[in-house]
Every structure is written in C-alpha cells, then in structure tokens.
C-alpha cells in the first residue's frame, strides 16, 4: 500500500460516489455548472424590474402631454440632461437586452437542430447584443443636449436661456 490510497482528494474524486457536502443541486451531472438555473432566475428577476422600467418609459413618452407627437430632439435633450432618466434608460437597455438575448437563445436551442445552424444563429445573436448594448450605452453618456452650431429652434429651451 502506498500512502496515496488513503483517502486523498484525488482518489475520492475518482471513486466519485458521493458529492462533497453542500455542493449545489444538479438534476443531471454535467461539467457546465448551474448556468441554466441562474438564467431561469434572471429571466424572472429582470422581468419584475422591466415591468416598472418599460411601463414608465411608455407612459412618459406616449401618454403624457401630446404623447408620440411631442417627441423630438429637444424632448430627448430635456430627458437626458437629468441623471434620473439616464440611469433609467441605461438599466432598461441592459436588462431588456440581456433578458431578450437570453430568451432568443432558448428559442434558437428549441428550433435549430443542426449544430452548425445553432452556432451561426447564436453567433449573430451575441454580435447583435454587443453592438446594440455598446451603442446604446455610448449614446446615453456622450449625448450633447445643446450641440454648438445647431439650429436653436430644434433644441431644448434651456440651451438658449
């Protein structure tokens, strides 16, 4: 007998009949961790927050005042000169994009049976996700409500005041 057989972790792992105490529950043994569980939880948590963010967005932009008729550059200038709406839109952008991308991943897994098709579709999905999230984030933070040289008629009233 060599000392290596005396219950070293390496041997216990090879025998593999018992889980380590308090290891996370897994329906089926995989090497992939609990990714699907976390994504399931995320869909629900983000959904609750999105109800508030999206309904608030639609109410302010469609119901207040003249609704969609009132939206123009000056309207956006008024909203995004306040950190409140910047953060609101930033959260909405990230949560809706992660939620929607994860939902589309599920749909692709359901219908695209060939490995190549599935790989290509998911590649396109993650590409679209990256472009839109980066673009939207940059737009919120680099937005200039009163650009120099622009027609003052088109700007929010505080630009000329």
């Amino acid at each position, binding site marked *: 007998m060599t000392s290596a057989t005396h219950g070293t972790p390496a041997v216990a792992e090879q025998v593999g009949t018992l889980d380590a105490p308090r290891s996370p529950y897994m329906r089926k043994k995989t090497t992939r961790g609990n990714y699907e569980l976390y994504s399931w939880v995320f869909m629900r948590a983000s*959904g*609750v927050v999105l109800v508030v963010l999206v309904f608030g967005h639609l109410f302010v932009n469609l119901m207040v005042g003249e609704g969609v008729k009132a939206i123009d550059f*000056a309207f*956006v200038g008024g909203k995004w000169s306040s950190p409140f709406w910047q953060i609101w839109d930033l959260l909405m952008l990230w949560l*809706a994009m992660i939620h929607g*991308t994860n939902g589309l991943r599920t749909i692709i897994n*359901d219908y695209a049976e060939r490995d190549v098709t599935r790989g290509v579709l998911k590649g396109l999905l993650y590409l679209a996700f990256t472009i*839109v999230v980066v673009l939207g984030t940059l737009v919120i933070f*680099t937005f200039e409500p009163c650009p120099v040289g622009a027609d003052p008629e*088109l700007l929010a009233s505080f630009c000329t005041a």
Partner: protein
Amino acid sequence: MPTAQGGTLYRGREGMWSWVAHRVTGFAIFFFLLVHVTDTALVRVSPEAYNAVIGTYQTPIMGLGEVGLVAAIVFHAFNGIRIMLVDFLANGPRYQRVMLWIVLGLFVVTMAGFLPRHLMNVFGGH
C-alpha cells in the same frame, strides 16, 4: 421542433397558446428594440437627422404599429407575471388557467386606457 407525440392534456389548450403568444411577443419586442436603439442613436448625428426619423413614428401607419407594440409588451409583461406566479405560488399550477383570464382582463383594461389617448394624439388634428 418539439417532437413529443400528440395527445397530452397541455397541447392545444390555453396553456399552450399563452406560451406561443409569450414567445411570439418576446421575439417581436426584441427586434423592435434593436431598431429602436439604433434610431435613437441618431441624436448623436444631428438634431435634424433624429427629428426626421422620429417624425416617421408620428404618421398614422406607425401610430397603428405602436398600438401593436404596446399590446405585445402589455401581454408579455402581464403573462410574464403569471408565469412567475405559476412557478412560485404553492398552488400556482392549479390556477394557471384562471390567472390567464385575469391577464386577459387586465390587458383589456390597460389597452382601453391607452388606446383613446394614443389614437387621439396620432389622428387628432393638432
């Protein structure tokens, strides 16, 4: 495609159709969002460019499109809450059908609040 044999209790009933509607609305909202963030990005180009594109959102045809979008979001949101209640309430699955009717009722009420105002904004002579 799901390949189970036919003849389950679930198939073809309210539970399945609400699932189909949830999937279709989620899919549609996602693609709207891709376009929406892109056209909002025009605020970085010039006030004129943004106003030109957002002006098309104020035409009658787009006004009807916005009705469709809002309907999709309202259904997806209320039905999403129903899915969570089915998952988390002890008796959730037993009440899934009742809760679907509540979702549809709330959907009608919300749209009844939204439609007159939005249609007046779009079609009313301002």
